[in-house]
């Protein structure tokens, strides 16, 4: 007879937030070892793809990829490939080359020299054979902040699965993903009335991510702005106060919240195509969702 599953949770400060991992297992040492491996997998992503770490692989790319093609590790190249796909699918709305704008507005540290004066886009990033990256212009840099956190969650999930865990949840400050037969309750809070959850989603084999304005708000010239930059307008913007996306994996969910935030009009079609759905709070306080919200939630439960 199979022994019943217990839930084991651990939390550590990583990725600029608190990452919580919950594994369900009938054997505590197995669960703990699997959780340790999952945290280690997240730490690897952080070391490679953080803009905030001068020694990360990404910082090396940002410092040198105009001078010469830079070889990167397979995972970083995989994330860059996904970023390019999303850049194309979103008609340029998702664009990691907005980094200099985020430096200028204080959302990212200023590690590098003068930013390129001309208009730069992800089309100016060359992904070459042999996992190499080259910039077409001087003064370019990439910020993978809109996608790497989700990827880190996916890597942790993969580590837990490989370790033989049956069901688990990885939650990196609101970017979360579950796998296995167990349904984990996930609350969506109202942005203005957080004490009352708007909905509790049963999350099984699925990822959920939220982007909200006040997270990284800065007071600038008397106006509140969030770190969402529309490349076409070259300005911080966002008419929505909060966006929640359900998607098959956390990398996609993470990136799609940014796309919806910047381009709510066009994004329902893209979400549908990627088996994802979204829930938004607009500035007037209305709560809206894509028509496929309920079915998407059900499909992966």
């Amino acid at each position, binding site marked *: 007879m199979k022994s019943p599953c217990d839930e084991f*949770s*651990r*939390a*550590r*400060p*990583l990725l*600029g*937030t*608190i990452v*919580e991992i919950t594994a369900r297992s009938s054997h505590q040492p197995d669960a*703990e070892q699997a959780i340790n491996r999952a945290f280690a997998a997240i730490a690897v992503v952080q070391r490679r793809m953080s803009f905030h770490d001068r020694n990360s692989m990404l910082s090396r790319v940002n410092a040198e990829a105009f001078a010469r093609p830079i070889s990167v590790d397979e995972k970083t190249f995989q994330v860059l490939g996904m970023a390019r796909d999303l850049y194309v699918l979103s008609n340029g709305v998702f664009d990691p080359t907005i980094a200099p704008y985020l430096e200028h507005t204080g959302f990212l540290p200023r590690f590098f020299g003068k930013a390129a004066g001309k208009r730069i886009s992800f089309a100016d990033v060359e992904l070459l054979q042999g996992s190499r990256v080259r910039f077409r212009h001087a003064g370019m840099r990439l910020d993978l902040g809109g996608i790497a956190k989700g990827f880190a969650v996916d890597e942790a999930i993969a580590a837990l699965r490989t370790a033989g865990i049956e069901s688990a*949840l990885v*939650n*990196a*400050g*609101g970017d*979360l993903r579950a796998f296995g037969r167990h349904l*984990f*309750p*996930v*609350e*969506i*809070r109202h*942005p*203005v*009335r*957080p*004490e*009352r*959850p*708007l*909905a*509790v989603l049963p999350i099984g084999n699925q990822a*959920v*991510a*939220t982007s*909200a*304005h*006040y*997270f*990284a*708000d800065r007071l600038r010239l008397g106006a509140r702005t969030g770190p969402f930059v529309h490349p076409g307008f070259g300005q911080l913007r966002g008419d929505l*106060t*909060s966006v*929640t996306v359900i998607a098959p994996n956390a990398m996609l969910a993470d990136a799609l919240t940014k796309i919806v935030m910047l381009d*709510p*009009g066009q994004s*329902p*079609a893209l979400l549908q195509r990627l088996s994802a759905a979204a*829930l*938004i*709070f607009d500035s007037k306080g*209305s*709560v*809206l*969702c*894509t*028509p496929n*919200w*309920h079915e998407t939630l059900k499909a992966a439960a």
Partner: protein
Amino acid sequence: MKDWIPFVAAPAALASTAVPGFANTYLTVEQAQQAIFPGSVVTPFRITLTPDQQKNIEFRSGVRVRSRELKVWKVSGGGWFIVDEVLGKHEYITYALGLNAGGTVKQIEILDYRETYGYEVREATWRQQFVGKTIQAPLKLDGDIRNISGATLSSRHITEGVKRLLATYEVALR
């Protein structure tokens, strides 16, 4: 915005009650000692900082020292185990820091945290158990998604706490 429809919550969600705050415990002190230093023997190390040490630590770390009483254990075979608390406007976190024999960070484990928000914070009697200030945006937690065990805590306070403990090691333990 034509492709968006009004969100109607499932009946179960409407039935859910208010959540005034949230608390979760991950590890006891003993469990954290075993998690960070498996198989080692840890011995309580009684230490109270002098006012001079306190000033020195604040100078080195740039972080305020709230309590001169430390919760420190010495680890057999070298190393230190320290339990510390950080307080924010919306959170209260207890964590353990394991230091290698040379004073470098071995591992950090969160033991437990509580979070809360909004107007409750203004209630003086209620606030006493969570005294503390944060430079972070007051609505930081709002609008976030979390599962029942929460996810919205910034790690900034812990980063500052670790900075303070590393200075404490230099000043008082080394």
